[in-house]
């Protein structure tokens, strides 16, 4: 690390929600996010041309982005979770309204409690937002693979011995496992390339 590199300082919400909630799987902490922030979003949406149903959709999207970001090793929440979520809501709602409204009408109010943290949340949330598009595409196409392919790739990722994988999946030998694995990867790749959003993924570094 160079002397100029500034490591982000984790906000207390990082430990509470990201570490304890997402990384350790404490579902109560994650449920708290719904309980604490969904109401805020509904109120904000009402003032910004949205309905309750729109708010629920936007909230689910922000939870998806957060789940993906929390799973990334280097992700560090350096602002309050609410500010991070707010920026995601704003971006996503703007994208959805873009087709319906003129540009000058896309001026949103900012939730006062997050105003001072927006400058920290913006870059973090913007990156998370574009990474999520790519990740969502991988998730969608992975679920389109056959059950055997999904299981095979997961077992391989968990570094299970090839013999064990062959036995679990009722395959005759090591060669069959390798061959099927390559076939699965190629099929997954072809599914990814068929997706219209694939361009978002092209320049994404993992």
């Amino acid at each position: 690390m160079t002397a100029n590199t500034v490591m982000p300082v984790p906000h207390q919400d990082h430990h509470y929600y990201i570490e304890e909630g997402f990384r350790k799987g404490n579902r109560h902490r994650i449920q708290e996010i719904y309980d604490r922030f969904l109401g805020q979003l509904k109120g904000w949406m009402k003032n910004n041309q949205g309905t309750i149903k729109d708010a629920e959709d936007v909230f689910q999207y922000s939870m998806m982005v957060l789940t993906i970001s929390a799973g990334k090793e280097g992700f560090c929440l350096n602002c309050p979770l609410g500010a991070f979520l707010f920026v995601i809501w704003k971006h996503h709602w703007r994208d959805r309204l873009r087709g319906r409204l003129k540009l000058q009408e896309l001026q949103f109010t900012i939730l006062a409690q997050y105003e001072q943290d927006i400058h920290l949340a913006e870059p973090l949330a913007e990156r998370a937002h574009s990474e999520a598009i790519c990740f969502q595409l991988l998730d969608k196409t992975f679920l389109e693979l056959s059950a055997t392919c999904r299981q095979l790739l997961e077992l391989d990722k968990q570094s299970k011995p090839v013999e064990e994988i062959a036995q679990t999946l009722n395959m005759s030998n090591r060669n069959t496992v390798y061959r099927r694995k390559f076939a699965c990867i190629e099929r997954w790749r072809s599914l990814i390339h068929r997706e219209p959003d694939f361009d978002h993924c092209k320049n994404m570094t993992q």
Partner: protein
Amino acid sequence: MSEQDLTLIEAYVKGNMTADEKAAFEARLKSDPELSSALSDRQKMEAYLTHRTSVAFTLDDLRHLNQQNFPEDRKKSPLIPVRTIISIAASILFVLAAYFLYNTYTSPSSPEELYQAFAEPIPLDLTTRGENACADDQLIMDLYTAGKYSEVLPLLQNCTEAKPDNSLLKMARGYCQMELGDTEAAGKTFEEILEEESLLKDEAAWNLALTYVRAGELERAKEVLEEYSIIRDGIDRPRSKKQSREEKLLKDLQKLIDRK
């Protein structure tokens, strides 16, 4: 993408290369955009799989939590008069019933029927190479062409033992085993061909799928078709006859699976 390149990509992604191998691979990446693109895709998949297998709270968990927090049964006031809804429902029911009846009479109703609709003998010509594959080539071809599979199978077995590199003989052996209902042996024979560098891999995959159909393992048949079809035909090539027959079988397979 060749199997050799896929193996290299795997070794690179998993960090199983020596320093020299890694340097050589990285040098090749600079001049081979196809390899570089395949590696980039594979790295994204790996990152996704890392998330899927190592994070305690995954997207699947999130889907469950969303279902709990946003149940689908929100009451909505009907915007369309009830009478119109009933008429639409009746029309849909009529169309569905017609579709069901049409399907019942036009697509196979059992795995065996499906198998019979698609299985075709693999053409066996042992004379074109100018050398004898086996001592009794002509007899093998005659019995096979006449559909006398139980008689020709022992001859084929002897012959494939004597000529283990001849994939065509193995294909014929597999076909006989499949026709005689020995799906386990047929499956092994076709798997064996798939593991070789054989030009008959496509046919082996197709017949492996049919073997699973005959054994009543419809999901596995579907998986085999899905996994091999893309590799064989490539992503951007035009549709071939083989693709059409695969699509038809996949469609009929799905209908049978749905009916179960």
